[in-house]
């Protein structure tokens, strides 16, 4: 059984339609997002200098991104000095190959994993499995996803679409197949479920020789990696095994420990709605006699330098994976994360995924920048001030430009026609003469109900207004701007 994959997912509107019909998931997501949204708003509201912190976070990241070459070299030499082995990976397959080689050198057929977005991005688990190496997820939610042969649907809480009775069923059914089974009298009480996971995972922690992690931050001047987590499973992985391999996106750098101070305030409040993070692990290369004695760091590009080359889009590399934008997004709340066809869902995924993968290659990726009503709730909460709506609009332009020169579709033809009409007031007036006639014909119906395709995209669920008999422009011309009209332009229709 190979791990579930996002490959071959349909475009967002199709995946979303399916997700919208999943009433269990709709309920789970609504409860979860609203709870965490309120929690975040509460703890962010307590911080008087929150706006300054956001600006500081954005400025630190912008400095790193603007001088990435120098910081990367600095990080490499600090890490090497501290006894770590640094590897460079251009893409997913290079990174996966490095991890597989290290595991093989130590003759292991399993690794334990700290929750990590980047290993999901490069589909490391599938690559390890193909090489005959089992990768055990040790974060509770990642474990639920892995045991359920499922896909993650949230950055922070990847099993957000599951409720506790579903989790109980998965544990009872699957744990025994890959290790210590769950007790037969397991209930769906959260403490009971956590206990089962703890017992199941403990034997893996104690047995594993190799651990794989990501990193939330990499401090350039000391070579320190930082993992921020809530369950303590990360610390088990980072301290018990003999060998530790950490895969780190090149944008994860912060220059100094002082800069960490800003992010360790921004991140927990934005992500879990906590004032302080429960388990913050930091390690600097190898400490003799304490913890892993062989430490590898894989610095990964995988599309990041092409994001960096995009003047508007590069702000997405400031992202610290807090998921605040997911939790406030009205689209995400209803569709869940899997509809986005990527390990990075929600508003940040809608910009990051197409930039990392490249625009103009497949319909699913190109649909992502359109998976937003541009309401701006994401930008409002982003701790590092990523103007997600701005980047979405920018990427839509890139999608359109990537398709120019090909056979124009309905939308492209409509947009060209609309541009021609709306560039000249006389042309618009001519269109309004037509709508005026249809208004006179349809006037008695009041509202326009269900219509055939393509109008059904509007009218399947919504009435459409009947056009007025006279446009505003027509009224202005006929009445000399209302001066010749005592009724002053009540058009006789009420409501929309």
């Amino acid at each position, binding site marked *: 059984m190979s791990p579930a994959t996002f490959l071959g997912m349909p475009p967002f509107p199709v995946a979303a339609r399916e997700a919208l019909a999943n009433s269990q998931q709709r309920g789970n997501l609504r409860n979860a997002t609203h709870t965490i949204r309120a929690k975040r708003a509460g703890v962010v509201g307590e911080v008087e200098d929150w706006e300054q912190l956001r600006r500081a976070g954005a400025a630190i990241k912008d400095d790193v991104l603007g001088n990435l070459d120098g910081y990367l070299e600095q990080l490499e030499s600090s890490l090497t000095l501290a006894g770590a082995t640094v590897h460079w990976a251009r893409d997913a397959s290079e990174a996966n190959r490095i991890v597989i080689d290290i595991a093989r050198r130590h003759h292991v057929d399993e690794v334990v994993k700290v929750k990590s977005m980047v290993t999901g991005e490069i589909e490391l688990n599938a690559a390890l499995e193909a090489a005959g190496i089992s990768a055990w997820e040790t974060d509770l939610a990642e474990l639920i996803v892995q045991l359920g042969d499922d896909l993650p649907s949230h950055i922070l809480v990847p099993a957000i679409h599951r409720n506790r009775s579903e989790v109980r069923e998965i544990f009872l059914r699957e744990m025994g197949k890959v290790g210590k089974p769950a007790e037969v009298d397991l209930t769906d009480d959260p403490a009971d479920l956590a206990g089962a996971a703890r017992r199941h995972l403990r034997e893996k922690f104690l047995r594993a020789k190799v651990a794989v992690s990501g990193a939330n931050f990499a401090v350039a001047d000391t070579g320190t990696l930082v993992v921020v987590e809530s369950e303590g499973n990360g610390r088990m992985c980072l301290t018990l095994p003999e060998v530790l391999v950490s895969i780190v996106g090149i944008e994860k750098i912060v220059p100094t420990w002082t800069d960490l101070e800003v992010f360790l305030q921004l991140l927990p409040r934005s992500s879990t709605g906590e004032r302080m993070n429960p388990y913050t692990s930091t390690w600097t290369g190898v400490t003799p006699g304490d913890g892993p004695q062989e430490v590898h760091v894989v610095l990964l590009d995988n599309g990041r330098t092409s994001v960096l080359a995009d003047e508007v889009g590069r702000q997405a590399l400031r992202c610290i994976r807090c998921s605040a934008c997911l939790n406030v997004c009205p689209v995400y709340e209803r569709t869940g994360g899997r509809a986005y066809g990527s390990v990075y869902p929600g508003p940040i995924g809608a910009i990051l995924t197409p930039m990392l993968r490249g625009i103009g290659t497949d319909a699913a990726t190109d649909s992502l920048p359109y998976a937003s009503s541009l309401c701006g709730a994401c930008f409002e909460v982003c701790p590092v001030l990523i103007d997600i709506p701005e980047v979405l609009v920018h990427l839509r332009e890139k999608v*359109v*430009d990537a398709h120019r020169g090909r056979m124009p579709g309905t939308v492209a033809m409509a947009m060209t026609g609309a541009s021609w009409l*709306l560039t000249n007031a006389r042309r618009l007036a001519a269109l309004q003469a037509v709508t005026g006639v249809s208004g006179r014909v349809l006037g008695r119906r009041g509202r326009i109900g269900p219509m055939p395709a393509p109008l059904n995209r509007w009218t399947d*669920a919504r009435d459409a207004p009947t056009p*007025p008999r006279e446009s505003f422009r027509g*009224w202005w011309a006929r009445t000399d701007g209302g001066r010749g009209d005592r009724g002053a332009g009540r058009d006789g229709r009420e409501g929309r």
Partner: protein
Amino acid sequence: MKVAVFVTCLNDTMFPGTGTAVVRLLRRLGVDVEFPTGQTCCGQMHVNTGYVAEAVPIVRTFVDAFAGYDAVVAPSGSCVASVRHQHQLVAHRSGDTRLAREVATLSPRVYELSEFLVDVLGVVDVGAYFPHRVTLHPTCHSRRLLGVGDRPERLLHAVRGLTLVDLPEAEECCGFGGTFALKNPDVSVAMGSDKARHVREAGAEVLVAGDNSCLMHIGGLLTRERAGIRAMHLAEVLASTEPGA
């Protein structure tokens, strides 16, 4: 002060009553508002759908129509946000430096209706009478992109006879989103039906907003459900007066 109304293409074509309400309201407040007939559209639909090149001539038409005015007032938070935040980008992309200069001087003089009333004219009580229970949907672009804050509420509070009731989860997007409503109709309707439910829960007779695009969407859901709640633009409420007044 030479003041022009930018009625917007949607209102001009589909909701002329909103445009005439702006004219009546501003005249009542002593502003001799003009309608430059060369005007068409702000170009937002094109920009937000990715057709920036096609938006260039539209922005040029906008600048040509309004360049000679001290202030431009529009009954749409979304269109004004586009003028203020996107026209510069479109002009920059066109490579036309003259257009970029003209946009830079014109954009700050373009106001959403509630901004114009409260900030430029300095009025909150516009002398309106509207004896109904009303709830307000604060549209995303007015609130987040323009920062109109509580201006619409303050204007509504001052209307005689009007009872303003709270809209649950008011700050949630209604799901219109321009071409989003057509490209992602299922998600758009899912968002809109939650908004419509909140409007019904508010117990109002009239749903008011500063954008007819959002109202067309929420109102279309409400009438499909035969909810018996009218959707009305803020301008039309503020233009209403006592019969015979």
